[in-house]
């Protein structure tokens, strides 16, 4: 690909949709495990945080616009090591000698806010795809 066109724009917008959908998956995992006290690594579930990274679509292209178009992808998923809330529940099977259970460090309100921003960003991506599609059909109408 030498010059930016309809398909490069669609590819970039599509990468945004994939990344936002991935983020929603991670948020869903955090919300679903908001009270999980046992994991394969031992201890309570720890909140996961996806980190987005920019990746050039064509780093060696001649066209300056093409060099400056970046796809988005989830570079890594970070695990938060912040301590979770300690809950006093001596009956709980995972309680320590003092009767406290460490809960996951998931804040349900924060996750819900993140879920909403991910959803809005996804919608923005869909809107830009609609826009590119209408531009393509406007260009095709020239020949009619």
């Amino acid at each position, binding site marked *: 690909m*030498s*010059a*930016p*066109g*309809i398909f*490069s*724009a669609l590819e*970039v*917008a599509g*990468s*945004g949709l994939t*990344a*936002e959908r991935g*983020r929603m998956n991670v948020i869903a995992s955090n919300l679903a495990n908001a009270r999980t006290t046992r994991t394969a690594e031992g201890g309570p579930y720890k909140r996961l945080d996806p*980190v*987005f*990274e*920019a990746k050039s679509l064509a780093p060696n292209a*001649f*066209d*300056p*616009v*093409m*060099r*400056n*178009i*970046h*796809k*988005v992808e989830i570079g890594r998923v970070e695990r938060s090591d912040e301590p979770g809330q300690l809950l006093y529940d001596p009956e709980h099977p995972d309680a320590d000698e003092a009767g406290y259970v460490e809960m996951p460090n998931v804040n349900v309100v924060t996750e819900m806010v993140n879920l909403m*921003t*991910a959803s*809005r*960003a996804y919608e*923005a*991506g869909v*809107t*830009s795809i609609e*826009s*590119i599609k*209408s*531009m393509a059909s*406007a*260009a095709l*109408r*020239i020949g*009619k």
Partner: protein
Amino acid sequence: MDIIGTISPLTQAMDFHLSRQNLLTANLAHVDTPGFRARELYRVDSGFEGTLEVVMQATDERHIAGSGSAAEWKVDVDPNAPVGPNGNSVDLDREAVKVASNNLRYDALSTMVKGSLQGLRWAAQDGR
């Protein structure tokens, strides 16, 4: 002044808006990427620098000529976009408005190209 001569700047403007749409789409895709700065496509006035670039590209007939867009357009970080706490300067509303207006301009240009071509057809068919 001829019809073909009218179409050429219009198609160049369409190229500009298609390139800009690519940049704006990338900006929207990076609304959550930490440290990402919103980019914008600027027209460069055909001053000394732009002319120089064109001249440098075509000093020998064996050189591969550039598309010409390099001298006329310039990609730069949008200085007016406010930078958020994580270093990201993509404003969802700002970019969405830009996408919509860019789309409208492209549609207007394509209508003008279509009109010019219809005029050419009209002339070619002896005004029938």
